């Protein structure tokens, strides 16, 4: 049976025009085809074709960057499905959540996965930063990408924060009230902040008013947070994620110590410099640098 299926695949399927148009390389049974598979696949080509062995070890990377991205995808998929059942208005939002829990098949599981996935994503992003710090991976030449990462971390928190309002229950409303009350106190721009009186800030024209679309958390806040949560912030986030991934590759792939040979060469250079001898730059070690 197995042989028959194998024969059928090899004689009828793999050589067919349809198969050949999708996969432009042979099956990934040898290193050459596996390299081609990574190279010619838009998702896999985020990876290099080959990488040093330590970079495949979980104890080095903790996998937190990848897990963050996986959870970003989980949030996108579950989020899109949730949008089918949700009206962002103060009269319908809460009832829609109830209907997700009691009427929609697997609605509760969907909502749970979206919420717990968001919490997991916050944790994954924090621990990604923790690992990158502890391995000193933000150092030259990855300074800029570290900065992009810090912004992405902030955006992750903001995504979670804007999503917190959408169930429109007491927990949501008051968490957002507490959170956005901080904006009242922004210097110059919040009506209770220092020096705000010089700019004529009142509770109906300051930065908090712009964020809430009103003087208290209400219907206009819900639609603002909904658009921020579902469209605006994910858009910015996808843009920055692209930069983040691209720069990992452009900055030399995953961080790691200099290769043993290079490190040794540097050591010799340092020792000679310490001894006050002039180091002759041979063509060989110029090429190394």
């Amino acid at each position: 049976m197995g042989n028959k299926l194998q024969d059928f695949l090899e004689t009828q399927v793999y050589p067919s025009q349809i198969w050949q148009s999708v996969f432009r390389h042979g099956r990934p049974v040898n290193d050459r085809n596996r390299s081609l598979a990574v190279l010619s696949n838009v998702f896999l080509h985020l990876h290099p074709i080959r990488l040093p062995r330590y970079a495949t070890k979980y104890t080095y990377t903790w996998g937190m960057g990848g897990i963050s991205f996986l959870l970003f995808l989980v949030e996108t998929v579950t989020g899109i499905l949730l949008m089918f059942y949700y009206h962002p208005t103060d009269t319908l939002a809460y009832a829609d959540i109830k209907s997700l829990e009691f009427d929609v098949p697997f609605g509760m599981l969907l909502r749970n996965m979206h919420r717990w996935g968001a919490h997991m994503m916050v944790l994954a992003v924090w621990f990604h930063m923790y690992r990158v710090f502890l391995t000193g991976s933000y150092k030259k030449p990855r300074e800029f990408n570290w900065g992009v990462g810090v912004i992405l971390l902030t955006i992750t928190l903001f995504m979670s924060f804007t999503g917190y309002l959408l169930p429109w229950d007491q927990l949501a409303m008051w968490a957002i009230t507490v959170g956005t009350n901080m904006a009242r106190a922004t210097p110059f721009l919040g009506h209770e902040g220092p020096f705000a009186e010089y700019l004529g800030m009142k509770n109906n024209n300051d930065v908090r008013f712009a964020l809430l679309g009103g003087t208290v958390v209400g219907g206009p806040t819900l639609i603002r947070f909904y658009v921020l949560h579902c469209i605006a912030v994910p858009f910015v986030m996808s843009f920055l994620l692209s930069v983040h991934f691209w720069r990992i590759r452009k900055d030399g792939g995953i961080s790691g110590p200099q290769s043993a040979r290079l490190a040794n060469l540097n050591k010799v250079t340092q020792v000679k410099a310490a001894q006050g001898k002039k180091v002759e730059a041979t063509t060989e070690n110029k090429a190394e640098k």
Partner: protein
Amino acid sequence: MEETTAVTMYSLENFIEILTLPDNIPIVILITMLVTYTGIAFYKAFDNDKRIAAGRPVWEGEPHNQEKVHTWPHLLNIEFIVAILVMAGLTLWSTFLNAPLEEPANNSVTPNPSKAPWYFLGLQEMLVYFDPWIAGVILPSIIIGGLVAIPYIDTNPKGNGYYTWKDRKFAISVFMFGWLLWIVLIIEGTFLRGPGWNFFMPGEYWDAHKVVPLVNVNFYELLNIDPTTPWLIRELPALALTGAYFSIIPFVVAKLNKKFYEDLGLIRYSVTIMLLLLLASLPIKMVLRLTLNLKYLIVTPWFNI
């Protein structure tokens, strides 16, 4: 009579109830992850330190580990397994624990305590010590800006791309201090702050009518300065103290540790020392509150610090 009060006032039931609230489960996971991953990192760091001391390459730099392997299958295998485990974990978590849903939003019923989402409780906890414009706006901006600045002010070329402690003692200590402070504040804000944002020990009943004496005083009151004195004169000691904190300490540190100053140069050193002093200002204010009941250090007509 007193005994029964003691039993109801101090029982772990209330604490366990808060600990197992569905929305607080991430904090329990956070603590577990912190212990596990810090353990892994420092185990590897001390191992590498021993290797460096013995003149051997670090674990990441071993010839065997430097060897190039193919992404397919060596990396994709482990990515696939991790992805499956994460998805299985998330599905199990979502099957057995429901996301909370309270009563419909109501502007006229304020829950006590009102808390921000758990990841912002560090900021909410800072509100105890600083006014909202500092705790809610200035400090978060400085945290973000300070994190972005790290690669540009840490000029130590060592410890790039491998776990180590000895090569980066200072950088790691500062980061760990900030990171642990952030987590401690989240834990405190979640588990130990009850109605009225009052402090409750684990097991203490969250009494909305807890009587807390308002004994906090401003710095000039500690010095017995007449509150009706013109504010600039009244605040002179506090302004002098704050000025000294941000000017004399950088000067003294630069003098005492010339190498640190010279390695960084004027601009990098100024940014670094200011960030360090700002980082230290939070625990300093916390200690002053606990010991001297200090409310504000500086009181001006526009803002208080």
